[in-house]
């Protein structure tokens, strides 16, 4: 058998900042392919819609690395897969025990109740942007602070610690995150959270996530701490990156932006299509699962103990929808994989959807002529994080 080719892993070496890494599409064009990551770990990459759904939902694939090295372009993950509360690395009942009580905090109706508060936060930031005048950096003015304030609100953590959340996220999700620095920041954040925990214990309040975890679950202190930090980090990092990427996608497609501006009340459907297309086009191959026994996927056998890695290029699979390679904001929502699939599907998906809908509606209604101050291809993107996004988005209006 020939040696597996080295995978052109996202996000290195993109030809266009919103497109796949060079050579990636060619590499996966003939179905599943076995590749080697720069740190020597090998695995199968799946990029068909059905294949990705199978890898993410079939119980024969485990999310637990069980001490095995993760696929990395560089560095090592700061979180141990066996750390209590690291539910991303758990399967079955163990995972459900942590996941289920948290779902309650992200219920669809709860998100609907949060709308006015999110709208208020967005409006305040748009007001500030207008007062300050053009040019502005959309990342600093809107993309970062809004999700950060919203998740702090949802958890019940005082919002003035935003910078600490961001610094922690940088270590937790950085490609070269330092375990030592992460632990120091997590300890600081831990003190902030511990104070909230004590207050919730005393008051019995369950109106926010920490209150809910403290008063209505059997989570121990260590689990609760890591889950709270995880929610804070995940809650602002991902939404913030994607709002930036959506905006850039629309800047490059005035014809599609016009569809949003014509009828902003369709923001719910539009967010789904932007999510499907933007993530699909980036092609990210990141999430990995270990086969517990031999499993057939897309015509190949992933042997017991081997890795399967999914590429969200699957969002552009014609099996999902017609002309899947095209952005079409008039499309009705389809079951894309932008939030993942299976038991580990993004816990905060409904919150992210709500925030992204409000952000899109508000930004492009309030500033109908907003446009990039420099071409998208000249902007800088974050290559140092597992999560991808623009470092700054200079805009004028």
């Amino acid at each position: 058998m020939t040696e597996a080719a080295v995978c052109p892993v996202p996000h290195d070496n993109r030809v266009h900042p919103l497109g796949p890494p060079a050579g990636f599409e060619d590499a996966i064009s003939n179905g599943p392919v076995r590749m080697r990551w720069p740190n020597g770990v090998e695995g199968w990459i799946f990029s068909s819609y059905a294949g990705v759904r199978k890898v993410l939902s079939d119980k024969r694939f485990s999310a637990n690395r069980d001490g095995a090295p993760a696929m990395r372009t560089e560095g090592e993950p700061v979180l141990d897969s066996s750390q209590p509360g690291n539910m991303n690395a758990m399967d079955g009942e163990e995972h459900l025990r942590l996941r289920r009580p948290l779902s309650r905090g992200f219920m669809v109706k709860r998100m609907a109740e949060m709308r006015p508060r999110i709208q208020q936060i967005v409006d305040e930031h748009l007001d500030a942007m207008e007062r300050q005048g053009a040019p502005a950096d959309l990342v600093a003015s809107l993309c970062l602070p809004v999700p950060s304030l919203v998740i702090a609100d949802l958890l019940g953590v005082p919002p003035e610690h935003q910078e600490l959340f961001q610094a922690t996220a940088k270590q937790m999700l950085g490609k070269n995150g330092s375990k030592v620095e992460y632990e120091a920041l997590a300890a600081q954040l831990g003190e902030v959270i511990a104070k909230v925990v004590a207050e919730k214990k005393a008051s019995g309040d369950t109106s926010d996530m920490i209150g809910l975890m403290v008063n209505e679950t059997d989570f121990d202190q260590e689990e609760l701490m890591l889950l709270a930090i995880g929610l804070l980090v995940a809650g602002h990092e991902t939404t913030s990156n994607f709002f930036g990427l959506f905006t850039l996608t629309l800047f490059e497609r005035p014809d599609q932006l016009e569809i949003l501006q014509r009828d902003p009340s369709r923001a719910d459907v539009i967010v789904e299509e932007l999510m499907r297309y933007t993530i699909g086009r980036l092609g990210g191959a990141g999430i990995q699962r270990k086969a517990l026994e031999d499993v057939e996927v897309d015509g190949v056998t992933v042997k017991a103990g081997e890795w399967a890695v999914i590429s969200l290029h699957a969002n552009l699979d014609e099996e999902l929808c017609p002309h899947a390679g095209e952005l079409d904001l008039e499309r009705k929502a389809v079951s894309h994989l932008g939030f993942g699939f299976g038991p580990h599907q993004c816990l905060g998906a409904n919150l992210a959807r709500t925030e992204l809908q409000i952000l899109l509606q508000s930004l492009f209604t309030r500033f109908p002529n907003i446009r990039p101050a420099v071409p998208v291809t000249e902007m800088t993107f974050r290559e140092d994080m597992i999560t991808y996004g623009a470092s700054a988005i200079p805009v004028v209006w």
Partner: protein
Amino acid sequence: MPKSATVRIDQTRCIGSGQCVLAAPDVFDQSDDDGLGLVLISEPPAELLPGVRDAVDRCPAGVVSLEE
């Protein structure tokens, strides 16, 4: 007379993602007690079936079923 269709949620494996509520809000809800999916109309009329099929397809845990 068309045969009726029956909707079910396997609550033992439901993760409370709420995808079914987004797909068919008239047919599904989430319990205030635990966030898990609830079937409001177990034999929905024909006009609600497309939404239910969407819910079956979207459910990340694969626990929504429709017997037609």
